[in-house]
């Protein structure tokens, strides 16, 4: 049994402990301890019934902890070493763990960390390594998150929108050390899609798959960002694209549109284009109009302006972004791109320099520096050729 299969069991086992009377925070700690033991002992001595082993081990650890803390409390809760066999664990146990980890009272970073532990079944050590923080810091972040949601009933489901937002954030974290956070996000979104019957869950899963399909082409061998129009489409994962498109079509057919389905539709139109030139920008703009209607934000409007630029030309796009705050992330880079297409490389180069100064990542900064350098070289070459004597 590999680690991935083991990790899949984690949220369901937490759910079982909670149904037996454990509070969520203690149950989650006990399962984490059982998980760490399993990771150490299973490679040599795998159990016949992995889930049963995890439940038994976690339950013992929970009881040990409670006896150590207060044996009276254990008695009061009516906890027994051998609990009566309750109803068969159901999908709702797992689902409730998703909702609790994405509880609206949690700051986003805490919700993501808690989700990685209780839903993905990662160890604190792995999560800490992924976020480049000390393990003790991550352990505290998770404990504080659990204290914040202490007392929240686990018997009712919450707002699916908050769960989807946490999964979306997690997917966007991309790589983190040895743990591939994007793949983890896909795995647990797939699991959520199997537990629910909501077109938006399929929409989010489709969105992730369609972006994941292009992952290899997004960075060059030297680590640099490769923009969409320069990506080698032959490297796109056609199986993932086909799965994403299929999920999206089934979701759209149910006629309950949401922001993730709209974003997935945009990603699908890019994935569908044999070349950058053949992209159906008119349809992409229409989907952005839907997105503005469903989930309006300055970032959505900026991205819409990029699509408008491709569909209707850079002047229309520049007019569209003139209404937005120039302090928006990526505003300067978008403006630079539009000025270049409008035939003003000098202005474009200056804007790329601004964009490099305000970039949020080193890769984005380097990309903008390269663009500025390229445009200045073009500008210098055209000045040289225009001053050459005709010959």
């Amino acid at each position: 049994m590999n680690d991935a299969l083991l990790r899949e069991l984690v949220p369901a086992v937490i759910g079982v402990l909670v149904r037996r009377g454990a509070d969520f925070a203690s149950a989650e700690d006990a399962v984490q301890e059982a998980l760490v033991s399993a990771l150490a002992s299973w490679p040599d001595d795998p159990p016949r019934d992995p889930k049963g082993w995890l439940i038994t081990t976690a339950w013992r650890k929970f009881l040990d902890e409670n006896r150590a803390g207060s044996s009276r409390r254990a008695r009061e809760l009516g906890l027994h070493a051998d609990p009566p066999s309750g109803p068969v664990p159901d999908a709702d146990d797992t689902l409730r763990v998703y909702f609790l980890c994405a509880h609206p009272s949690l700051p986003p970073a805490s919700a993501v960390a808690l989700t990685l532990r209780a839903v993905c079944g990662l160890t604190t050590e792995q999560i800490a390594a992924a976020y480049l923080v000390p393990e003790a810091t991550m352990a505290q972040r998770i404990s504080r998150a659990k204290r914040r949601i202490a007392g929240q009933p686990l018997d009712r489901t919450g707002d699916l929108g908050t769960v989807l937002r946490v999964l979306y954030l997690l997917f966007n974290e991309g790589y983190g050390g040895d743990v591939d956070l994007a793949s983890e996000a896909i795995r647990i979104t797939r699991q959520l899609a199997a537990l629910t019957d909501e077109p938006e869950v399929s929409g989010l899963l489709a969105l992730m798959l369609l972006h994941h399909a292009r992952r290899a082409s997004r960075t060059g061998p030297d680590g640099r960002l490769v923009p969409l129009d320069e990506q080698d489409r032959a490297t796109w994962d056609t199986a993932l694209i086909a799965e994403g498109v299929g999920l999206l079509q089934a979701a759209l057919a149910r006629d309950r549109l949401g922001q993730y389905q709209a974003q997935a539709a945009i990603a699908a139109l890019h994935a569908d284009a044999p070349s950058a030139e053949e992209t159906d920008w008119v349809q992409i703009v229409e989907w952005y109009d839907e997105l503005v209607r469903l989930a309006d934000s300055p970032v959505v409007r900026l991205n819409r302006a990029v699509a408008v630029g491709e569909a209707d030309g850079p002047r229309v796009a520049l007019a569209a972004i003139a209404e937005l705050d120039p302090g928006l992330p990526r505003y300067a880079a978008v403006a630079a791109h539009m000025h270049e297409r409008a035939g003003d490389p000098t202005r474009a180069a200056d804007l790329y320099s601004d964009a490099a100064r305000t970039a949020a990542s080193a890769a984005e900064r380097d990309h903008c520096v390269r663009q500025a350098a390229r445009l200045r070289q073009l500008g210098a070459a055209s000045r040289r050729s225009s001053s050459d004597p005709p010959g």
Partner: protein
Amino acid sequence: MKYLLLKHYRGGPAPVTDLPPMDRWTPAEVDAHIGFMRDFAARLEGTGEYVDGQALAPDGAFVRSDGEGRAPVVDGPFAETKDLIAGWMIIDVESWDRAVELAGELSAAPGPGGEPIHEWLEVRPFLTAPPTISE
């Protein structure tokens, strides 16, 4: 022993070369410079001497307490501070001499025309934990 190598956008001794900002280099020069930095870190990982490195955004500010119950005082961001740190690298090496040797190599990153930029890097030793056996 750990050392912090600090790269400054501004500050430190007077530069020995008068360089235009990187967005005014040619694309090939930019690529060569970024590639050198990446290879340098990879090589130090290979020798077991690399610990960490991060780049910093140029924007930031000075902040101080203004007393209990009051919001902190924020000064900046400044268009022209005397000193501006661009990023750091932490290395774990045998000696001060090795730290100086590596900082020298890093300072020779290629710039315009492929010429070494000879930028000043600040090298600062970490204070260590006290030894267990001290007598």
